[in-house]
């Protein structure tokens, strides 16, 4: 290839589930799999491509590396976290084709759901919850856990965000948001082990203009928007793309509407549930856009969001609703369908003109002697 210049990043070939793809060197296995898409992509609960240092914790994206690289084709001894493992040229990765991976992933899903309250019916995240999707795709129908689940008190962190630690899966994404987006970190993990909790140190408010992005990165319903809490189920709302000229952020958002009312404002998300990027910069939005601009007149509406048809949100049929074509007259050869009563205009038993009867026919209409023919 003569068009190659020095600036181009060398590409490497990696085979994931027998599909070979060429990606720039330094790409992680997960991101390579995302380029292939579909079932080949391992699920990821903690990895967030826009947050530096995230990933590696939830272990749902574990994959088997059957061959390390073309130079050193030995398999890796353990399953690796695909979100934090870079591809090598000639690497062979097994995801859904590996029984080891499927077994480990089922275990991880069980572990993640072990202490999760499964309060989806009252959870605002239901319908757009990654743990719900994960449980649906990889989970078992029952749990083997017979003990009391861990619970925490609900906590308000600031005027806009509520922390419901009971639902948390400790993905650490929100702490990375606090680290990387906000200038004053008051948000982290206290304690350790299964009693570790996300917290603002000693119930401080998070007072920062970009704190609302924690809600967007939260894969479960642990961090919820207080302005939207219990207002509606997401699948009853219609997401539309909108923008405004914001001095602080990109101003590109999704409005979640019911009728003309704006119930919620979030950043725009891509197919992996991550915030979209514009010109290589993540489209985080500020708290003013998120919490204060709740009138449709604040925004320039661009149009409906394309919702994945597998999402429960897509059942709202909000966009370009088409009435199905009426096919019955065609089937009946141009004849309009009639009621059952009209199949015979005149009763063959006693020659009663059915169409002459006032209202529906009753027994007495037939039992009465037939009118004498003139």
């Amino acid at each position: 290839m003569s068009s190659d210049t020095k600036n181009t990043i060398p590409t490497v070939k990696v085979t994931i589930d027998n599909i070979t793809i060429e990606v720039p060197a330094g790409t992680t296995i997960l991101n390579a799999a995302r380029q292939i898409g579909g079932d080949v992509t391992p699920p990821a609960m903690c990895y967030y491509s826009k947050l530096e240092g995230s990933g590696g914790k939830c272990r749902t994206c574990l994959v088997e590396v059957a061959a390390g690289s073309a130079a050193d084709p030995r398999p890796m001894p353990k399953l690796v976290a695909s979100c934090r493992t870079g591809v090598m040229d000639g690497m062979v990765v097994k995801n859904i084709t590996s029984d080891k991976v499927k077994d480990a992933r089922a275990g991880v899903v069980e572990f993640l759901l072990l202490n999760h309250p499964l309060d989806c019916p009252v959870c605002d995240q239901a319908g757009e919850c990654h743990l719900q999707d994960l449980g649906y795709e990889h989970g078992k129908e029952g749990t083997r856990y017979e003990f009391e689940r861990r619970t925490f008190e609900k906590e308000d962190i600031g005027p806009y965000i509520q922390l419901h630690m009971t639902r948390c899966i400790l993905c650490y994404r929100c702490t990375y948001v606090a680290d990387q987006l906000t200038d004053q970190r008051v948000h982290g993990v206290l304690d350790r082990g299964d009693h570790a909790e996300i917290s603002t140190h000693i119930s401080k408010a998070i007072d920062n203009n970009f704190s609302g992005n924690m809600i967007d990165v939260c894969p479960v319903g642990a961090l919820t928007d207080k302005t939207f809490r219990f207002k509606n189920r997401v699948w009853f709302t219609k997401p539309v793309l909108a923008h405004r000229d914001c001095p602080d952020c990109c101003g590109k958002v999704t409005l979640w509407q019911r009728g003309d009312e704006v119930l919620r404002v979030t950043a725009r998300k891509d197919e992996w549930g991550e915030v979209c990027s514009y010109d290589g910069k993540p489209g985080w939005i500020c708290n003013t856009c998120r919490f204060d601009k709740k009138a449709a007149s604040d925004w320039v509406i661009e149009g409906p969001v394309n919702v994945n048809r597998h999402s429960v949100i897509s059942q709202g049929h909000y966009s370009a609703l088409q009435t199905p074509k009426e096919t019955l007259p065609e089937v009946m050869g141009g004849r309009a369908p009639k009621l059952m009563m009209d199949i015979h205009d005149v009763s063959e038993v006693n020659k009663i003109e059915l169409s002459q009867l006032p209202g529906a026919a009753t027994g007495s209409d037939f039992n009465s002697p037939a009118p004498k023919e003139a």
Partner: protein
Amino acid sequence: MGRKLLLEKANVPGICTYEVYRREGGYRSVEKALKSLSPDQVTEEVKKSGLRGRGGAGFPTGMKWGFLAKPEGVPRYLVVNADESEPGTFKDRYLMEFIPHLLIEGMITASYALGSNRSYIYIRGEYVWVAEILERAIDEARANGWLGKNILGSGFDCDIYVHRGAGAYICGEETALLESLEGKRGNPRIKPPFPAVKGLWGCPTVVNNVETIAAVVPIINDGAEEYAKIGIGKSTGTKLISACGNINKPGVYEIDMTISVEEFIYSDEYCGGIPAGKKLKACIPGGSSVPILPANLLLKTAKGETRMMTYESLADGGFVSGSMMGSGGFIVLDDSQCVVRHTYTLARFYRHESCGQCSPCREGTGWMEKILWNIETGKGKMSDIDLLWDIQRKIEGNTICPLGDAAAWPVAAAIRHFRDEFEWHVLHPQEAQQRNYGLMHYADPIHVPNPVMA
């Protein structure tokens, strides 16, 4: 009488002071290394000695040093892992408490080999007094010109700092230790990158156990060949074993890895046998996280050979019928001990010490603890034993750091070798509250099948 290299002078009165230590021949290795050897030659000596990491994994130290990246203009660090928190292990404490200068001396030599101008001792928070002993030793060494700028006129600068942990077992994992040393929450890092490439503050770092670094002193003093002569096969040199549990003489012993496990337990030179006429039931040969072995498999391997106190022999048979040398925490259980209760205690420890970063370890350790508590208190079901097995299987190998494995192995080994004791607990819940299962068949000689001739 085995040969002692580390603890030879430990009982000399006042050995913890610089004067006595120097008078007894201390700091010779620094003189030798700085005056007559290049850093690479020191590393080469350590490689030739066959020294293996004494912290638990047993990775060859020289090879680890050789992996250290050496980019221009980037500082390199030596960090000594003194966060000795494995239940049953207390050898490093003994060493630092009695001959702190041995560690300092080894650190200066190792820092010279690695090019570390600032070296750290990350010491367990509970070892308050040991940290003070080390601080005093460092001050003495600095006052006598062994630390600071231009040591012995060689142009090599080195200083040593003691950093106290805050009492977390997980900070003994090398990357969690580095995080903690940087002042962050002690969560293990995701590897790669390994510390040899990106360690402390993103710079190449070697993390070594206290005993490993102390062993550098005799290697440089006597030469690698001399050191490698001690021991069997790839288990060279001497190893500190902290023996505890049901033995007559618990304590720290230096063995030269040529003796058998049986000799170690029963000889008067070491543990001195099991007290009160009881019998050996089981033993954890290398600290709480390595697999427990019943008496018959402990003294003889599955092949019928005598099990020796070496890395290879203790690991003989893999996890099916072997264990690990680990960190040398030798815990002996006699026939009055209950393996179920013992396993529960370990599970409780690992649950408490799990950092909670990755889900299998965070959730799985707590789950195992609860199930074990049920079995122990007579509320267990037969299916719980299989469930435990499945949980440990799903934790092992799927976590960020080895703590997950460390939590899974004791449970796995206990079920593997003592399943009938677990079943007895489930089937006789009342009886299990009043008495222990006892020795049963755990010391019976194992049948070794005759090799099939081809």
